[in-house]
């Protein structure tokens, strides 16, 4: 009964606490970004790369974490964005960085639409196989169309203009890094809105029980396709960031390996939470940088052990497990 009487008064602060939690999240990202800038001034290229991959993992979280679609072909969306931005610069003469990012987002969204239309035709193992086929198809197509994409040599000669006409992309990658962090923050804020919106709730419902959603008059397929397009735009922004910052686009951005790695990062951090996606990316990329300097096969073995350990001991990922622990401690308090 006490619960009932407290409810009306509890509702208002609960809502504002949600937004203050978002502010804390944004602040934490900013603190990490500034720390990275100050601590690793010679390694900003790696940090920018992590930012671009974080966008890919966020995008994967939208379809895998929030909609329950298992895919091993998500790099197709990232690579499409990268190539769209790169080709716009090299062949279309569009070298203004913000426009390049917009083109990347559009390219990613188009790839998302195509992927979604194909992948969502099946479930389970066939769905996984379709996603794998898609990434290979994109890869082979980019390889074949070498006059446009540079083929296996990669697409080079991307020379973005100074950002806003003021900040040139310097040798140390400072501009690119700041640009990347701004893009990441903007996307993060938009996605927090999205996952909380009625549409986000509908997606979570589909993940749990599509039959129930149909029995409520909801269209499962149309909703998932829309989410795939949004996810494509997010991944495409990541790809465009990668094209702008490294000034080359390689076939590895359309690879099965990148797709599988992004899934590993997402699960490591925890699916179904934007924070999990960010934490997973950071942890994985940092770990990779640490270990891969040694023998690449030791790196593979360690990633393998890490994956097995996550599945066995932290199935909800780093963020999921940590927040469950925190919640238990919180409850334990009087």
């Amino acid at each position: 009964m006490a619960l009932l009487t407290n409810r009306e008064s509890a509702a208002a602060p609960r809502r504002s606490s949600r937004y203050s939690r978002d502010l804390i999240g944004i602040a934490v990202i900013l603190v990490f970004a500034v720390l990275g800038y100050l601590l690793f001034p010679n390694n900003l290229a790696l940090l920018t790369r992590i930012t671009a991959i974080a966008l890919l993992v966020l995008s994967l979280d939208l379809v895998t974490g929030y909609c329950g679609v298992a895919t091993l072909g998500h790099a197709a969306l990232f690579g499409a964005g990268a190539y769209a931005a790169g080709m716009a610069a090299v062949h279309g003469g569009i070298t203004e960085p913000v426009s390049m990012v917009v083109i990347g987002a559009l390219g990613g969204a188009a790839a998302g639409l195509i992927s979604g239309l194909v992948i969502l035709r099946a479930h389970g193992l066939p769905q996984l196989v379709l996603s794998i086929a898609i990434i290979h198809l994109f890869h082979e197509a980019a390889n074949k169309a070498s006059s446009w994409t540079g083929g296996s040599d990669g697409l080079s000669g991307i020379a973005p203009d100074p950002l806003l006409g003021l900040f040139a992309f310097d040798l140390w990658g400072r501009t690119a890094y700041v640009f990347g962090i701004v893009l990441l923050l903007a996307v993060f804020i938009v996605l927090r809105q999205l996952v909380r919106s009625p549409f986000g709730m509908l997606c979570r419902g589909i993940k749990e029980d599509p039959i129930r959603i149909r029995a409520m008059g909801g269209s499962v397929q149309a909703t998932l396709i829309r989410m795939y397009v949004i996810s494509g735009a997010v991944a495409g922004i990541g790809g465009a960031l990668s094209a702008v910052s490294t000034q080359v686009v390689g076939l590895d951005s359309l690879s099965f390996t990148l797709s599988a790695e992004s899934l590993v990062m997402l699960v490591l951090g925890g699916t179904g939470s934007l924070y999990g996606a960010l934490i997973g990316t950071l942890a994985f990329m940092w770990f990779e940088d640490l270990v891969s300097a040694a023998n690449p096969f030791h790196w593979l073995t360690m990633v393998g052990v890490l994956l097995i350990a996550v599945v066995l001991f932290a199935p909800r990922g780093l963020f999921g497990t940590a927040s469950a622990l925190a919640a238990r401690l919180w409850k334990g308090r009087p």
Partner: protein
Amino acid sequence: MQTIFSIAVDALAYGMVLFVISIGLSVTMGLMRVVNLAHGAFAMIGGYIASYAARDLGLGYGFAVLIAVFGTILIAIPVERLLYRRIYGAPELTQVLMTIGITFCIIGITNFVFGPTLKTIPLPAELQGSVDLGFRSIATQRLFAIVCGLAVALALWYLVERTSFGIKLRAAVDDAAMAAALGVKTEIVYAVSFAIAVGLAAFGGVVGAELLPVEPYYALRYMVTFLVVVSVGGAGSIPGALLACLLLGGIDTAGRYLMPEFGEFFFYLAVIAIVCIFPRGLAGRAK
């Protein structure tokens, strides 16, 4: 004409090798409902062991094949006990991650132990050269691969259709809970099928080494191909897998001969078309 004949022979041999390796995956997937991405890794272990036995120890080919098959099974048993057991019935994503993890570990460890180079398995004199068929001659090794594939298909057909183990296996594939209730020891059926599956993978890895070279990233490179075969054929179906292997082997080989610059583009296009038309596989049963 010469080209068509070469394509046909290569496609048949390639399809048969695919069949030998993937049929175990198909049966275990149909039986245990595990999306096992590590299957190719067991074929790779087989290839590495056979190469070590034949090239470094100088053992005979037949002996090397035997050591490879049983060695791989020995390695796989603890993996099944300790890791696979935990993911039976788990969500797909969990199974995918666990088995990718196992694949990465196997690649890393195998290359650490045997060295990261391309492994050759020296063929005995009888399998080198070519056989004259009267109007054409074909490489003996290709013929050997085809014969092995047919033998495996026949043996499996006999095992599944004509033995009491086969009856238990079919019952467990259809409805594991019901089979268990009828007194079938599903644990044992699972373990035996897993061992057979791994043994066949190793066998296929060795016999098919001429077509699918044993190299450091073997398990990753062909992981997808094997999964595709199972998915196209329909998990748990021997005729479906055979049909899928011949079909995909044909498309892939023809693509390589006729349009090498497109790589595997047409192969994956065909996969998408087939999966979209037959979402449950060529021999899939409606639920």
